[in-house]
């Protein structure tokens, strides 16, 4: 028994060595840093990989990083030595920060097909999908959801909502900016009024949506206007719907960009262009559960036509967000405490 134990220990160590010694990258490979769920088996990653590899004669290598904020972290840490050719999945709010690193370069992409609720000005970032933040509600628990942010803020305190923390999550930051865009300097008072209705503030979207909301803990959760599209198309249920708010909804735009130091400039550029081609764009609605950033006509799943149509798309300038975010988070913290 003892010798068997020793044997297994040495086998394990041997295995470890083998992994450590795995070879590095092959030639003509495009390395794309993205967030985790993008590359998951039912996410957009595999579809886009197959389609792009068919036309590029190269290998597309996705590196999954645990959140979209972590993607930027990673390239900042790696600096000029980064393995990444392309970063994919940065949030519009992080664009100014990303640009400031000086690690990115112009995409050279033809963005004429891009149709966003706002005009697009950046030469560096290619917007590949978008959605609006919205409160998703359970129709079985709440027949008549609030019709405006104001109505939610002034609703009776027994209407409970679950939100995410702006310090740790993109939707959480989105809601903070949404309140700011609508109420400006009064945001702090609004948060104080909202406070008793907030059941809890989670670290990320998954805990809020899966662990709590779908478990029936609260009738409303902060998510996206596109979320019901998934439930209708894949789960075949209309139980979960987004509440349309009169003030308009805050926009989230997901972008990709090319790294300046990438040795595969041409390949990277063609990938960025491919991201807004009809083929790639058509895959996004049901895999990434967001609107494509271009008009894909009939390829948009019919369930998406049943989604709410925000009366107005709210978006604060990315430079303002970069400069004010910390102060606004402190304001939010103080109001909530």
């Amino acid at each position, binding site marked *: 028994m*003892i010798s068997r*134990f020793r044997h*297994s*220990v040495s086998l*394990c*160590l041997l*295995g470890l060595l083998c*992994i*450590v*010694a*795995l*070879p*590095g990258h092959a030639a003509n490979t495009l390395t794309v840093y993205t967030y*985790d*769920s993008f590359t*998951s*088996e*039912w996410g957009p990653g595999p579809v886009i990989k197959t389609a792009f590899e068919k036309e590029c004669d190269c290998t597309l*290598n*996705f*590196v*999954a*990083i*645990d*959140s979209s*904020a972590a993607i930027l*972290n*990673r390239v*900042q*840490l*790696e*600096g000029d*030595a980064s393995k990444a050719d392309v970063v994919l999945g940065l949030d519009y709010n992080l664009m100014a920060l990303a640009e400031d690193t000086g690690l990115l370069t112009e995409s050279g992409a033809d963005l004429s097909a891009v149709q966003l609720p706002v005009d697009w000005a950046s030469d560096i970032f290619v917007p590949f999908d978008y959605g609006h933040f919205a409160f998703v509600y359970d129709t079985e628990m709440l027949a008549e959801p609030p019709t405006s942010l104001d109505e939610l803020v002034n609703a009776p305190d027994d209407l409970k909502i679950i939100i995410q*923390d702006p*310090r*740790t999550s993109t939707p959480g930051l989105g809601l903070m900016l949404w309140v700011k865009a609508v109420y400006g300097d009064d945001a702090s008072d609004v948060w104080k009024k909202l406070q008793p209705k*907030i*059941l*809890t*503030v*989670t*670290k*990320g*979207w*998954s*805990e*809020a949506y*899966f*662990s*709590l909301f779908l*478990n*029936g*803990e*609260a009738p409303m959760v902060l998510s996206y206007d596109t*979320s019901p599209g998934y439930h209708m198309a894949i789960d075949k249920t209309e139980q979960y719907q987004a509440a349309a708010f009169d003030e308009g909804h805050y926009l989230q735009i997901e972008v990709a960009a090319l790294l300046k130091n990438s040795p595969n400039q041409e390949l990277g550029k063609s990938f960025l262009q491919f991201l807004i081609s009809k083929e790639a764009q058509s895959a996004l609605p049901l*895999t*990434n559960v967001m609107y494509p950033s271009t008009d894909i006509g009939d390829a948009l799943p019919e369930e998406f036509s049943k989604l709410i149509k925000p009366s107005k798309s709210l978006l604060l300038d990315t430079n303002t967000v970069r400069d004010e975010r910390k102060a606004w988070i402190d304001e939010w*913290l103080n109001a*909530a*405490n």
Partner: protein
Amino acid sequence: MPLTSSIGRWWMPGVLALTVLALITVLPLAALVLSATNVAPQDVLTNSHFRRVIWFSFYQALMSACLSVALAIPIAQALSREQRFPGRKLLINLFSLSLVIPTLVAIFGIVAVFGRTGWLNDFIGLFGIKPFSIYGLVGILLAHVFFNLPLATRILLQSLDNIPNEQWRLSTQLRMNASAQFRFIEWPAMRTQLVGVFMLIFTLCFTSFTIVMALGGGPRATTVEVAIYQALRFDFDLDAAVSLAIVQLLFCSALLLLSAFFKHEAPLGFGHRIPDQLFRPVSGYRWLNFLLIAVATLFVIMPLIGLIISAINPSTIKVLLHDNTIKAVFNTLFIALVASCLSVLMGIGLLLSSRHLRIRLGHYRLGQWIQHAGNIILVMPPVVLGTGLFLLLRNVADVFSIALGLAILINSLMALPFVLRILDGPLMQAAEQQDRVIQSLGIIGWSRWRLLDWPLVRKPLGFAMAISATLAAGDLSAIALFGSERAMTLPLLLFQRMGGYRFHEAATTAALLLITCLILFLILQAVVSGTVKRYNHAYA
């Protein structure tokens, strides 16, 4: 003389283990400190917001640890007094699983039972009792106790099961009642483990943050770890992150040092051999024992049942047979086994040296501190560890190609505190009982380990391996640090599926992870622990 030559090398295993530990924890932190331009931990301490955060982290961790340990004592006692009832073994093994469940799945299970629309509220609603809400300190404590009570119970149960039959026989001859037995037999046996278990749980809760946020009810419920995460992930503010990390490190290290002042030497056993059959007299109220066991079982099992129920859905078969799922099971098992071997090797190394220091050289506290060093990894926020290692390695090695190796190493270190807790008692006992035999017989080195230590520690060793393997199997933080295209593990798969709305698939993956861990646990215990009987007779 052969004795001196072996004693001359007593420090080697410990130094080796400490070196690995320092390389993976202290060095990355140092790298971060060097890259930061203005590290000012004092600013953290003077900031009123952070003072509140530190106070809350401390308060909830203290409460969680006190509750977990205080509740574990009667439950372990009940389980030890009731050696025979159907399902006891399975129950004890299930008790080791709660630590493994990824937090966001555990939150799902806890909320399914205790939430506003959970089973318990439905149930008490039948009697017209108003529903209660867990959001706030209650929820945090509930979740932390759910994670840590079973662990504490198992570790304490292990020390109770090590009480020699002779002590119990003597107690019945002396006509001791249940409370006297507790005072003179059970309490001294458990006391040796209490401080260690307490510190372990305290540290785990101090740094917990997904749970604290999800069930805490608002930003008031926040730990230092949240601020560190924010500083590194969203602000890329190395200065703030390092300052906060240093404060957290200092705070927890101070507590660790303090805990070393509580002397908790193992009691001297006499003629101790692990009996084939544990003799436990019938004492106290048996109905109370069974009531305690039943309540604890419900508390631990109900959330797991909530999880299993959600795992059975239209996608179950598709998910179980999916290529990625099967690959992930193999990757998870591989990582778990390698990390477990490394962790146990390092644990034994540290303990052998610290044992020598404590028992033979009389430097009791020094030995204990060395052992407490094994806890450092728990105080290091994963995001600090990852960033530091990156800074350290980016110019030296291709982080991508060694990512899996690093993740395994970090996993093995994360399990080290548990391994130390489990093996400390048995190894100390082995030394105290047998040092004289050894000196007279001149058994040293490997033969000593094989003939004397191994039979005594074999059972706890199996437990330690099982715990460290399942911990590594369930861990997400280490493997997610470096990018994950090489090794898709079950927790990672679960996380990805969850993030992409695939909730049915995620729930099934979570249940599969749980079952994989349970099987791994049972097999490791059976193989390593084996039957103790045969070896016992060899020297009895």
